[in-house]
């Protein structure tokens, strides 16, 4: 991988001020509410972004089997999560914001390292990510009213159209915006009752793993969000061609190394997956500006409209 080419000197094992040897973490996947290592046993090195990249972690390098396990876990979680009341889902999304808030300083440090931002910019970024959960939490019991309703048909029928989640949604998380972008992709998928299999930013997975820990300790049921770290060009085609994935968000395909999003879209035609394309056109596809208010598009992309008819008066 490209990141391993200029390998920096390892950080000293002790913290200078206290002389204490710090406890390092083993970074894992998040599947079905659990934190397994990759079944492949593989991991890859992750470095900070900036002038002198530091070693941050050995992230698990997810395999095809991991991706399939994640889809199975996501499928299993659909009925419970889609069947939950909108009020409940809103509370759960809000709870994620609460849990993230209490881990705020950790997120700031990690986003700073991952994206090479100043402390101030990283702070703003994390705040926006937390606020985004709150924003989407509020949509849970509103989008159905905005996007559905009764239809005035010309006949003695009562007829109503309501949006429903499409099922299991795979998502390629944005490569650049490691936390705000990630949250902006995940929250609109799950707010309507879909479950998600998310492939984290290839080179910036650490905030994603911490988000998984926040999700695991909030009220999000296991399997609703599954997070795989690894090489996008390796795992994404499996998700795109998987027959039990209903939709795929290709946002993170825009800047992923060795990924042509059109190929992933073509593979998605196999079972007519719903595809959310990356922003911009063709090879110039880019990551959207996640600091802007998102709008309803990302929620709508993973909804189906169901129209139910019933005779009236007979």
């Amino acid at each position, binding site marked *: 991988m490209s990141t391993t080419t200029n390998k920096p000197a390892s950080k000293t094992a002790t913290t200078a001020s206290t002389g204490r040897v710090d406890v390092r973490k083993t970074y894992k996947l998040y599947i079905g509410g659990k934190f397994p290592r990759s079944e492949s046993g593989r991991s890859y090195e992750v470095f900070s972004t900036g002038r002198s990249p530091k070693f941050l972690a050995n992230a698990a390098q997810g395999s095809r089997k991991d991706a399939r396990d994640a889809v199975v876990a996501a499928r299993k979680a659909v009925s419970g999560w889609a069947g939950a009341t909108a009020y409940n889902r809103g509370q759960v999304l809000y709870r994620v914001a609460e849990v993230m808030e209490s881990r705020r300083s950790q997120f700031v440090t990690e986003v700073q390292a991952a994206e090479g931002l100043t402390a101030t910019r990283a702070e703003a970024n994390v705040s926006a990510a937390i606020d985004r959960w709150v924003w989407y939490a509020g949509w849970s019991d509103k989008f159905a009213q*905005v*996007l559905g309703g009764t*239809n*005035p*048909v*010309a*006949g003695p*029928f009562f*007829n109503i*159209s309501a949006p429903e989640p*499409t099922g299991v949604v795979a998502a390629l998380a944005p490569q650049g915006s490691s936390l705000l972008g990630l949250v902006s992709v995940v929250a609109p998928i799950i707010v309507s009752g879909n479950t998600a299999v998310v492939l984290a930013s290839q080179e910036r997975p650490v905030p994603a793993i911490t988000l998984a820990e926040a999700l695991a300790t909030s009220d999000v049921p296991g399997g609703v969000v599954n997070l795989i770290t690894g090489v996008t060009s390796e795992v994404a085609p499996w998700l795109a061609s998987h027959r039990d994935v*209903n939709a795929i968000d290709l946002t993170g395909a825009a800047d992923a190394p060795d990924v*042509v*999003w*059109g*190929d992933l*879209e*073509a593979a*998605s*035609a*196999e*079972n*007519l997956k*719903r595809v959310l*394309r990356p922003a911009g*056109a*063709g090879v110039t596809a880019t990551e959207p500006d996640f600091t802007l208010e998102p*709008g*309803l*598009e990302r929620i709508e992309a993973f909804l*189906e*409209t*169901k*129209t*139910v*008819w*019933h*005779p009236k008066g007979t």
Partner: protein
Amino acid sequence: MPTFEYAPAPESRAVVDIKSSYGLFIGGEFVDSAGGSSFKTISPATEEVLAEVSEASDEDVDRAVAAARSAYRSWSRISGADRGKYLYRIARIMQERAREFAVLESLDNGKPIKESRDVDVPIAAAHFFYHAGWADKLAYASLGDNPRPHGVVGQVIPWNFPLLMLSWKIAPALATGNTVVLKPAETTPLTALLFAEVCQQADLPPGVVNIITGAGDTGRALIGHDDVDKVAFTGSTAVGKAIARTIAGTRKKATLELGGKAANIVFDDAPVDQAIEGIVNGIFFNQGHVCCAGSRLLVQESIAEEVEAKLKARLATLRVGDPLDKNTDIGAINSREQLDRITELTAVGEAEGATRWAPECELPANGFWFRPTIFTGVSQTHRIAQEEIFGPVLSVLTFRTPGEAVSKANNTPYGLSAGIWTEKGSRILWMADQLKAGVVWANTFNKFDPTSPFGGYKESGYGREGGRHGLAAYVTTGANK
């Protein structure tokens, strides 16, 4: 049961003037094909040749798309109110010429005149009326910030509802300021060509609507054309997948309305006589050439015998024959090719062990005909329970519990429609929630309306047609450009 004999009640063909040959409708004029080749369209009921129709070549597709592009510049800029007025004009002319359209549709497609007259044509006109009113109200449609047209829309429609599908496609495209190139199916091009005359009568600016006739190659050329911004297709799932692959990696948007294998679920507390009518309507309407046809009947085991007996009695009263006869219930199969497919799949049904039944009825000597057919003893794995037959063939399965009904109904890669028959409101609402289908008809079936979104889950395609949702497919907004 007594058999009622009906005297023939044929609708007159005199109202329709079919030309011996037709050109392509490009830039507001009928023009000769650049490729020069042509094909014949026949009446499936008699195999009589109705007309010679041009086969659009790649060069013709280029010309049509260029005409649409050139018209787009002004059409997208005129006021919504004026666009709406053109749509109102079209709707009115379709109503004025309704009888002509109905007769022509029945001649070219083989569907009974009572259906083309009472369903296809009135709903087609209604789609233009409905969308006419949207043209100057797009800002109120919650389509996102600053909704604007895509540009040139390439549309390919099937042979089962030729005029109705044309209206579903053209009306929202025009209302939102797009221009279109539409290709009707090769077996049913005539009402689209008559619609071209309507556009002329309405003084629709040249190039706003272009109609090119041809078969698969013409359709592929249109959908793959570089200067087409959006694609709208109704047809088979296999072709839909091919289209999705073709446009992958481009900025071309698509809506796909594809196949189905709808479950029509009848509970033991259903009003049985109404349910029988619903089952018949569900699968035998339009010869079963309906993507949302209720082709899998799921009957609760305790009433299966009763339902089967009543269904057979009802089927024996269906009149198969001359589509132009006003008493005809079931017309002709649209083409020999389609008849062969139905024949093949029903043979497979028998070979796999299902029990076949069809009423004794005399079929005309010429043309393509298939008796309304029921298969009982069908299991989930039978091909006739899994594959879309697209003909007047019903597979009957049974279930014991609502949960079993749901899992059987959802056991298909399709998800277009479903039916529920029960007197229990609570059960209807629960079932409707569980079924993976874009349209759920409870105690009714095969109802359509311009205000109501129609479209499928899973491999039945993506996008909706009709209502505010259908409109959304024809605009782009700041966020998704």
